[in-house]
């Protein structure tokens, strides 16, 4: 079983569209994250939820809206997609905000045309 799974793995869409990426973890972790990896492989944190509560909200355009229906799921919705949103988006989880390493999903490659 995949510990942290993201869907879709690949997403190609036009500018101005709205899209969502879903993430689920079966590790029983309390904390989940969204990271963005750009074309130069630089990783930047976007959001973090702990037990469904938003705890980290970096300087991200408000076109990006995370949603955590329960602590095993963290989805990312993006409105009015722009060319600069093209990147690989990684979901990750950890046992808690103060406990150690992150477990990453395989990534969702978003291409905006």
């Amino acid at each position, binding site marked *: 079983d995949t510990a942290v799974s993201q869907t879709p793995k690949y997403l190609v869409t036009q500018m101005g569209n709205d899209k969502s990426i879903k993430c689920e973890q079966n590790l029983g972790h309390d904390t989940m994250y969204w990271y963005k990896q750009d074309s130069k492989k630089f990783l930047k944190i976007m959001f973090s939820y702990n037990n469904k509560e938003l705890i980290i909200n970096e300087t991200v355009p408000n076109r990006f809206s995370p949603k955590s229906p329960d602590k095993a799921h963290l989805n990312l919705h993006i409105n009015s997609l722009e060319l600069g949103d093209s990147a690989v988006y990684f979901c990750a989880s950890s046992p808690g905000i103060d406990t150690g390493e*992150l477990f*990453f999903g*395989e990534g969702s490659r978003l291409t905006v045309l």
Partner: protein
Amino acid sequence: AQSVAQPEDQVNVAEGNPLTVKCTYSVSGNPYLFWYVQYPNRGLQFLLKYITGDNLVKGSYGFEAEFNKSQTSFHLKKPSALVSDSALYFCAVSSPTDSWGKFQFGAGTQVVVTP
């Protein structure tokens, strides 16, 4: 604010030779330090971490890292590199007293191991 520097974009090493990937950090307070590896088109995989205790930590796939507080470094090492170690390596830092919960990643170092 916390930060991580990986001074080398790429490290080239011959198979069987020692491998070192450098990392320095800056945090206020005690650092939690991590190394991750990313293979092409894959997510990041955890290698090892330093939280407290022995400065030399051992991790997966024969990797180890040494925490040096005075030099604020956490270099990743492997005594004998394999071709399969070729990948992108990330150092990360977190701190309970500085932006807690935000794992700050370095820019990554591409390791190329040649046969």
